[in-house]
């Protein structure tokens, strides 16, 4: 095979050189078009359909660029960067976290976004995103045009398609947080390797250039990004393969080049606050399963690709990998080259840790783009002999290309969510919600809105008391996930290098302004952050505490690994003042409900919970208790958050319908807090607006099930109305009776309580259903807040004909909820 390659090489090179040197651009295109690519000889490129494709891709890239910032770790990295800028520290995580005292390599990761945010706010962050997409788009357009002119439109089409799909799938990762730096670093490394290797992957660049370039790249990567070890892995793979694949007479040059690159990478990457230990940290982040229990690793979303929910990026990664393999399997040249081992390294890391998929997508995409960018004869998988005749006429083939492009990229756009977690999930779920089409806009996603949390804390007096160093002393915050810890760190403000936060007493820490020096009073900190816990060997402790909270294991117990569990003492030992619970963690919210931890807000994306009895929070706890009573037991109607001009309301530029996430998560939170009437009230508004969204119906049915369960506890069995609404078998009526209630519940299910109540006034109640129907009416009245009518109906029911025993009990139970009404009327 080697002999064949050597023998054929001069011929190939001559052909390529001939095209490059002797043929003018137009002639080259003409020459290319004779091979069956679809463009007849003599025509110009790009044609009308290809231009149209370009316009379509431009729209697609626009959608990708104009997505509000939604990364869960946005506030964490902004706090991180703010800490570096305001306190001049090189250990921002150690300052911000009470459990962490390690140094860190990527200390600069958040500094640029924090600086930009301080200057330009959310618009500044969006400009970073926009710039990145614009830069990549321009680069790809330039490359595609160049390649299209040289190699024909199909190669250009492939380049555009691959790059666009990659960008679309990476949409959640293009926010200016540390992942972006890793993506850029991988991209630069891939492009760099493609550039320094000549035809057939022969190292072709000077070693000085390679050394400087590699050192600079890895220096920046280790100080800004988290995965420089991936780069080292790629280089090692590349080096090994290069040594093995090259002919003996060239191996010395290759070895020198590769050794230079590796040395430069290691030295450059080690220039950071923790020196060579960056490689350990980075390796741990790449392979968390190597240092922590797989169960724990998986709980934080770092499980292998085989065990994660596949989003569009995962599918694209696999699809592109298959194409890459296919190109090599069908390659005329031997496939064992440097890229194969480098690809193997990347594939290994991605398959064993699904969170690395974005990096994998970048690598495979660059590899493929590199393949299609090369001259035809050097491209793996490209036929060497011209085909006998074109596949189709130029126009038809270009049309087909356009159609395929529109279909594939369109599918990608609707299958990708701009939100990495919670809103993302499996690709078909994102598709059902319209993908990137529904979320485009400018600013910061509403789930990252810290204002409600700020408000809740501003209305408690913990900041004021922190100045006096209360004997309570508890000043740390347990956060359940990355988003919570980030938002809380942002609100708590920067911490002085001595370890104490500045304590703004006006709640202005969250406005992103660095107003004043850090002072030494108070010491409010977030306890931990999953990544830092992993690096510090605390991930299992963190996970155990989280699990105990989610499973309601309050008291001390012992586990079969000899370790104690139970959240009470663990939180005590950490001096926990409050818990920051993500709104999407409804399991935790439900478990905290009967505990000593009480919410300080009902509507914040990150709900703070303070301990009942803590004087710093008593006022706020009582206020929220009043709010709970009001939304569940008083006349109240839910209004979805209004569209405004804040940076958090700019989805669809503030002009489109509100995001359904708001009401959906509010309903889930209310349900977890056992505010079931409030849940139904939220759902009534949401279902009217989005009647076909199955998620609202699921929450509604669950709420009815819980209400039916409550009725069963009170009266021994649920009412017929409730059983029918919840879809329980008890709801079926005995045969032979006219089922009025059934029809009314159908209306209730589809159109809500108000409509059901209106309709019930028009129907004649058959014998035997009076009590059940009256009870249904009573529930509907209370659900829509018609409490006076409800009280009247209760009195009528009590004075009327004999009710079924369970209805009597249920009516009495519902009556007890109206104590305030009788009290008000008594006044």
């Amino acid at each position, binding site marked *: *095979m080697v002999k064949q390659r050597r023998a054929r090489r001069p011929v190939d090179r001559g052909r390529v050189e001939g095209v490059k040197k002797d043929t003018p651009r137009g002639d080259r295109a003409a020459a290319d078009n004779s091979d069956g690519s679809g463009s007849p000889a003599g025509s110009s490129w790009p044609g009308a359909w290809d231009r149209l494709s370009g316009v379509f891709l431009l729209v697609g890239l626009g959608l990708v660029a104009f997505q509000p910032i939604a990364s869960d770790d946005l506030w964490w990295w902004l706090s991180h960067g703010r800490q570096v800028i305001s306190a001049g520290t090189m250990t921002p995580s150690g300052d911000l976290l009470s459990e962490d005292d390690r140094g860190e390599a990527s200390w600069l990761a958040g500094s640029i976004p924090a600086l930009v945010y301080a200057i330009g706010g959310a618009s500044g962050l969006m400009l970073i995103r926009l710039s990145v997409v614009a830069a990549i788009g321009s680069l790809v357009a330039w490359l595609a045009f160049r390649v299209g002119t040289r190699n024909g439109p199909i190669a250009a089409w492939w380049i555009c398609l691959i790059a666009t799909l990659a960008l679309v799938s990476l949409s959640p990762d293009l926010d200016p947080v540390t992942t972006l730096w890793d993506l850029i670093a991988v991209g630069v490394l891939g492009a760099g390797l493609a550039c320094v290797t000549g035809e057939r992957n022969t190292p072709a660049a000077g070693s000085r250039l390679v050394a400087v370039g590699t050192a600079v790249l890895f220096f920046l990567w280790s100080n800004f990004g988290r995965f420089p070890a991936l780069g080292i892995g790629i280089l090692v793979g590349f080096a090994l393969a290069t040594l093995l694949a090259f002919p003996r007479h060239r191996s010395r040059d290759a070895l020198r080049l590769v050794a230079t690159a590796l040395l430069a990478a290691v030295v450059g990457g080690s220039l950071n606050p923790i020196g060579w230990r960056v490689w350990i940290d980075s390796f741990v982040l790449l392979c968390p*399963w190597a240092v922590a*229990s*797989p*169960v724990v*690793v998986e709980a934080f979303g770092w*499980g*292998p*690709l*085989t*065990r994660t929910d596949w989003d569009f990026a995962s599918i694209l990664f696999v699809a592109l990998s298959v194409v890459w*393999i296919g190109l*090599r*399997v*069908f*390659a*005329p*040249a*031997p*496939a*064992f080259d440097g890229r*194969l081992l480098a*690809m*193997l390294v990347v*594939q*290994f890391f991605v*398959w*064993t840790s699904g969170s690395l998929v974005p990096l994998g997508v970048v690598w495979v995409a660059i590899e493929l783009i590199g393949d299609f960018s090369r001259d035809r004869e050097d491209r793996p998988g490209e036929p060497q002999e011209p085909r006998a005749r074109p596949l189709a006429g130029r126009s038809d083939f270009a049309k087909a290309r356009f159609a395929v492009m529109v279909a594939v990229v369109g599918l990608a756009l609707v299958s990708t969510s701009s939100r990495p977690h919670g809103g993302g999930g499996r690709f078909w779920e994102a598709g059902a919600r319209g993908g990137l089409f529904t979320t485009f806009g400018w600013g910061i996603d509403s789930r990252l809105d810290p204002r409600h949390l700020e408000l809740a804390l501003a209305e408690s007096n913990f900041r004021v008391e922190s100045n006096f160093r209360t004997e309570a002393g508890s000043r740390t915050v347990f956060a359940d996930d990355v988003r919570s810890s980030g938002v809380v760190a942002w609100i708590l403000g920067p911490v002085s290098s001595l370890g104490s936060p500045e304590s703004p007493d006006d709640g202005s820490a969250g406005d992103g302004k660095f107003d004043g020096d850090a002072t030494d009073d108070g010491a409010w900190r977030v306890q931990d952050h999953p990544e830092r816990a992993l690096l510090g060997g605390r991930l299992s402790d963190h996970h155990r505490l989280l699990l105990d909270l989610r*499973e*309601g*294991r*309050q*008291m*001390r*117990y*012992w*586990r*079969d690994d000899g*370790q104690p*569990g*139970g959240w*009470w*003492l663990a939180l005590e030992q950490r001096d926990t003042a409050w818990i920051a619970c993500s709104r999407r963690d409804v399991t935790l919210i439900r*478990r905290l409900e*009967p505990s000593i931890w009480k919410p300080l807000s009902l509507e914040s994306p990150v709900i703070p919970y303070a301990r009942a*009895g803590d004087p710093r929070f008593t006022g706020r706890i009582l206020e929220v208790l009043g709010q709970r009573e009001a939304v569940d037991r008083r006349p109240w109607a839910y209004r979805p958050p209004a569209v405004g001009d804040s940076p958090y309301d700019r989805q669809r530029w503030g002009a489109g319908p509100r995001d359904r996430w708001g009401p959906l998560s509010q309903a889930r939170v209310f349900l977890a807090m056992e505010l079931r009437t409030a849940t139904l009230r939220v759902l009534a508004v949401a279902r009217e607006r989005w009647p076909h969204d199955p998620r609202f119906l699921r929450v509604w049915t*669950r709420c009815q*099930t*819980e209400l039916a369960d409550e009725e*069963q*506890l*009170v*009266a*021994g*069995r649920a009412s017929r109305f409730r059983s029918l609404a919840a879809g329980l078998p008890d709801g079926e009526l005995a045969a032979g009776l006219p089922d009025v209630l059934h029809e009314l519940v159908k209306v209730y299910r589809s159109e809500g309580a108000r409509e059901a109540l209106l309709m019930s006034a028009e129907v004649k109640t058959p014998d035997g259903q009076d009590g059940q129907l009256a009870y249904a009416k009573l529930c509907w009245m209370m659900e829509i807040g018609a409490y006076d009518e409800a009280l009247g109906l209760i009195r009528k029911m009590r004075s009327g004909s004999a009710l079924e*025993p369970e209805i*009597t*009990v249920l009516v*009495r139970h519902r009556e*007890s909820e109206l104590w305030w009404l009788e009290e008000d009327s008594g006044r």
Partner: protein
Amino acid sequence: MIKPRGIVFIGVAVALLATSVMLIDRRFRHDRVVSPVIASPIGKVETRTCAECHPGIAERFLEAPHSRTLRRGDDPQVLEAFANRSIELAGQRIRFDARGDELWVSNSQLPFDLRVDWVFGSGHHAMTPGAIDHDPDGNPRLTQFPASLMADGQLGPTPGSGLSVTPEESGSPDGGQAPMHGITSDADDTRRCFGCHSGYLPETDGRIELGKMRPNLDCSRCHPSASRHAASGGEIRPALDWADLSPLESINRCGECHRRADELTADEVTPDQTHLIRFAPVGMAMSPCFRSSQMGQASEGSGAKRFSRFDCVTCHDPHSPAVTDPEYYNDTCRNCHTPHDEVASPADRRALTTAPCPVQPVDSSCIDCHMPKVELIPGLSFTDHWIRVRESR
């Protein structure tokens, strides 16, 4: 044209990758969630196995209240104790009836009856019946009935039920709340209840399996690594040796079921919180003599103190019924609270900081004043383990 060499290379690479990914995936698949000891099949040991080497303890344990902390509702002794008895609480007549071999509870103000599935407590203080149903997620859920059988053989209100014999004591004319069969715990609390009253409580996907539960405490409940100890023929010491625990660790171990002081807030642990007398380790942890003992134990190496070890097992053998002779307990007090001139060595006298009683002679009954029995509700008395000088005395 397909080149065989390329296919081989690619094939080897893909196979290598697939194998390594499969191996790691397998690790993920087979990794075990660490379970609570009570739910874990690892380390379980049958009492009869322990009895082979510790026959005396095993035999005594059969008589101990710990060996009968939980009984089924259809247990003949339960039927005999509860059947055909009733009590009126807050205007509600609660009645226990045997129907076949099952025990049922009716409430005069409710249209439905519930079957008693389990009865908690040994009867040393009380026995509280409960019923099991399932929440919407299918988790077992315990409803504790408001009437319990007290040690004096009479039915009385279950502590914490909020009901009392008279409506007035219950807070409002109708008993303060809409009538219910009892307080229904959520799945987590239910797990806690059974966790303390059983020796093995397996869980599947976080859901307790009452069908596979072993009611009542057994050896492995308090000696978690007893199986390894037994399997080695006694050569391997149990990982948890109670003698190695400090007094505080020891009472906290008991407190995992009988309540720990550090799992209550400061305002919950005050003498006026009368319900605390149910939680002996809490009282112990607050007692000055326990604290002195704990400090003395902690600084034992310095030789500065002469304190006996003082924790729950100083007076109580958990494998046996509680001793009923008051003098047994008084002797324990006198171990430390002896007049100084009776201590032989001058060095010991200097080190001894425990004061003899200034009010009563040394042969009087210490526990009458410092650990009195307190009637929480009629028929239900507890010894107050918060050993202190009481203002009222």
